[in-house]
């Protein structure tokens, strides 16, 4: 199951899309997110999904993006079934399910192609409080570490006879307790250790923090931003005024 989480983790990759300024990558991601919310037909969603997968191919993250896609399939099925059960027709249920998958995939574009350092710089450029930035970026940075912990814990409990996939639905959920408790305890211990290590290295001593890297927009960034904004305008115009 952990291979699915791979679809949400940044990996260094040699691609054109990776070299774009992270603020522009966030803009593209947010634009696709917004278009997913305003779209309401299968054709519109198809265009958005094709575009998302095109970006996936361009950034060489398609394989991992598909994992995010597979991960969201179970939720997608759940959303579809619930919509049918509460009385909506099949078409509406399909639209809602497609919206869900486009929202998840568009968000993953940014996280798959931007390192935690880039994320920090983007948040700094919005003048957010540094404590908030640090907490958020650290959480993102620790996802792979927590994933490794989870694998170790699962191995450890399986070695003591725990059969995670055994039993009915309730039993299966209960089976995860021996995995979740050590995972949470480990996360708390790690956060305390990290806090002490940060304080030992003068975290919070200076009000004004300096940065080794800074963001500068280049030609390719302006080009990518222009293409993204033009696409959004054309898309919205086509939906609301041309009724395509």
């Amino acid at each position, binding site marked *: 199951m952990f*291979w699915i989480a*791979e679809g949400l983790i940044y990996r260094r990759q040699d691609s054109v899309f990776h070299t774009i300024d992270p603020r522009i990558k966030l803009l593209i991601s947010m634009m696709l997110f917004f278009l997913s919310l305003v779209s309401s037909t299968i054709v519109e969603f198809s265009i958005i999904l094709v575009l998302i997968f095109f970006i996936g191919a361009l950034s060489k993250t398609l394989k991992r993006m598909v994992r995010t896609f597979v991960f969201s399939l179970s939720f997608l099925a759940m959303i579809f079934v619930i919509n049918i059960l509460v009385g909506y027709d099949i078409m509406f249920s399909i639209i809602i399910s497609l919206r869900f998958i486009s929202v998840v995939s568009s968000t993953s574009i940014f996280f798959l192609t931007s390192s935690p350092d880039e994320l920090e710089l983007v948040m700094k450029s919005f003048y957010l409080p540094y404590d908030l930035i640090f907490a958020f970026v650290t959480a993102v940075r620790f996802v792979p570490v927590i994933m490794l*912990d989870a694998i*170790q*814990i699962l*191995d*450890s*409990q*399986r*070695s*003591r*006879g*725990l*059969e995670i996939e055994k039993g009915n639905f309730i039993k299966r959920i209960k089976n995860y*307790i*021996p995995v979740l*408790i*050590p995972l949470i*305890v*480990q996360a708390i*211990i790690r956060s305390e250790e990290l806090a002490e290590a940060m304080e030992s290295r003068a975290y919070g001593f200076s009000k004004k923090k300096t940065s080794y890297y800074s963001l500068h927009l280049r030609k390719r960034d302006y080009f990518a931003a222009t293409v993204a904004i033009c696409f959004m305008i054309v898309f919205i115009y086509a939906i609301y005024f041309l009724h395509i």
Partner: protein
Amino acid sequence: MIEVKQLYFKYPTMKDYVLKNINIKIELGQIVAIMGSNGSGKTTLIKHFNGLLKPNEGYVKVFGKDTQDESVAALSRKVGLVFQNPDHQIFSDTVWNEVTFALKNFGFEEEVIKKRVKWALEFFNLIQYKDTSPLLLSGGEKKRLCLASILAWDPDYIVLDEPTVGQDFLQKEKLREVIKMLITRNKTVIIVSHDIEFIWLLQPRIILLSNGEVVKDDVCANVFKDDASIDKCGVIKPQFVELFDHLAPLLPHPPLDVLEARSTFLKLMKKGG
């Protein structure tokens, strides 16, 4: 018996094999140390013994049963694996319940569970903490608790991953006594460790690994005579061996323990006059 034949293994996300052409047999009643530098494949190899990992090529058989056909739970009944970090295992509200966890999973009867848990906690000097949260124990105590929770179901093979990390001298001594006791009961103890002094005093069979391949598989005394192999595997000789290597021209054979070393020294000093 654990039989490993032409084992090749690689993780799905990796290109290269982590284990290459491993061929070993481990009988009952042995102490076996698996040594090698970081990333040589030691932990990956021991995870094959209870089926947590399955070979890509070749096979691992435990008492004649191929690990490919058996569940981890079924294999763990025979092969108890104690992981390096106790915090990866501990989750129960009390020390007592932590030890009962595996026994309940294996379907032991209530009376048997009580008897075994009591024995294990007493043996590891943890019985006074039986109603305490295991999270409040010290690092050494947690490590002993993990060992107790494995020994409680009496597996034939006990695999210890870095058992001496974070242990003081007395705890190491205690652990060595436990290992020796297990051997008298015809159990096999497989130890993955970098603690060369600890390993030397046990005089085990040593399997040296380098880049996923077995470089040497022999008794302790012979392994430390093979300078090329131990250098290749990033293992250093115990200080004891190092010292007597230098004195080799003066000795009929290298001493095996401290007592023999002492008497050899005394003889040398008398000779020297």
